[in-house]
């Protein structure tokens, strides 16, 4: 039934920027700082860490970054049903950090890299809508929940999904923040042929 929901996709920087301002989330750059923090933390995982460390680090620091960037006068920290969010009381908006498989791709619907629990389902519409056909549904309590979705490449989108059966089943709106190319995650440009190391002091026997 969720397939009946028509998704509003904003791809152009000017429209995404305007939407971010409308949601009182500052700027796209501010959201991308949270993304960078999460990606940076995920890169701290080594072979010695547990296999899921990269994702765990990204989630921890993504959530931390979201709160560090926004919690203050307007946004506050909350944990409804154990879901780690920031909330905007006046606009009735919640934002959650999530690792996803692929972000900012029209052909692929982003899926969370970990199962979403009942709490997430409750704050993201989920079963509250039953089988009603909805276009851009309004939740009964008036709260809207957005996810800052970040994939491994650093692509990020601010998306309002529907959570059912532990995953995202539909998308009310998707705002493309970055395809990850701005990260410049290339290797350090090392070259050995331009090192100054030819020093041979003259030592002469008297």
């Amino acid at each position: 039934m969720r397939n009946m929901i028509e998704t509003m996709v904003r791809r152009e920087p000017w429209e995404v920027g305007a939407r971010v301002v409308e949601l009182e989330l500052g700027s796209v750059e501010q959201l991308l700082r949270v993304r960078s923090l999460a990606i940076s933390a995920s890169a701290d995982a080594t072979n010695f860490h547990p296999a899921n460390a990269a994702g765990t680090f990204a989630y921890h620091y993504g959530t931390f970054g979201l709160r560090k960037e926004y919690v203050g006068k307007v946004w506050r920290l909350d944990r409804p049903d154990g879901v780690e969010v920031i909330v905007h009381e006046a606009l009735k908006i919640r934002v959650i950090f999530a690792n996803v498989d692929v972000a900012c791709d029209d052909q692929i619907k982003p899926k969370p890299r970990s199962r979403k629990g009942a709490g997430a389902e409750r704050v993201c519409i989920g079963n509250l809508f039953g089988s009603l056909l909805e276009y851009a549904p309004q939740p009964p309590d008036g709260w809207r929940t957005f996810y800052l979705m970040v994939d491994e490449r650093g692509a990020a989108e601010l998306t309002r999904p529907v959570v059912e059966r532990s995953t995202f089943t539909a998308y009310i709106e998707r705002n493309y923040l970055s395809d990850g190319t701005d990260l410049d995650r290339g290797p350090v440009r090392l070259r050995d042929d331009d090192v100054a190391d030819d020093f041979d002091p003259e030592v002469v026997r008297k």
Partner: protein
Amino acid sequence: MFNHKRLSLARKRRRLTGKVLAEISDISAITISRLENNENQPDDETITKLARALGYPLEFFFEDDPEEIDTSAVSFRSLTKMSAKERDAAIAAGALGLQLSSWLDREFRLPSANIIDLSYETNPEIAARSLRQFWHLGEKPIGNILGLLEVNGIRVFSLAENTASVDAFSFWRDERPFIFLNNYKTAEHSIYDSVHEVGHLTMHRHAGSQPSRAAEREANQFASAFLMPENDVRARMPRFITVNTIIEARTRWRVSAMAMAYRLHTLSLLSEWQYKSACIELGRRGFRSGEPGGVAREASRIWQKVLSQLWAERRTKNDIAAALHIPLDELEGLIWGLAGTPSTRPERTRAFVRAV
């Protein structure tokens, strides 16, 4: 004639108080005090007891006055952490180093000092760039700092001090710059320390009084800028820097991961928060107490050449020590970690250690 200054020097090198030396040499503390103050001349038995207790050859005590180092002109690192005993021992090592340096000058012709006076320069970044320019290094990373210093006439000796609170010190003597390095630290630490001392030698040559914290900060900034030139770092680092990037990058500039992170922070390539996080993560991975996967220790070309020349003449380090009238362990200490990398550090002569 017995030289009381040499008795003080040997006692300080062994880190002994007069009282402890009295106990282990079986001589009264009053006698030792009078000898060090040149109020008495010792008899042969007393000299023998002192020499045995200190592990120094008898001849050492009959040489001319040791070259004294003006402690106010010495640039020490970690001033606050160093005890008076450690400081005295390090300064005394400096005196022995000068003796060894004079021997080198008598036996070999070595590069003369080639370092500019940058005491007028208040900006360490510019000072570092000026010295690089003077030495024709451009923006290249330096693959062998010890070789660079030796080619430019800076005498580098090792400090046989197995203590974390002594890093290095430097001074000028007769127009020649000297650096004493604690080589018991990581290779990256020694590289950074030696350039820190070059900072003092070139920027604070006429500072005169005791080095201040500001001077230490300047020398650190100098070392950072000299080892990691801004343009080269900017050109080679990706925009997105992780802890793994830092660990990879440090090998190009032969610095510690912590020093690399600090440089990236000062160049605004890492934000304050990223820098703090990187330091925490590096600490977790053991980069605060060591340098996992670090570079190989640099070896002194001068000492390699000197020792191989002596070897060809069938002479060894024992002969150098005998010529200088110093114990072999002191000679080994002064060149330890410079003349190749021995597997263990030189053992101090233990004759003076016994239960009391």
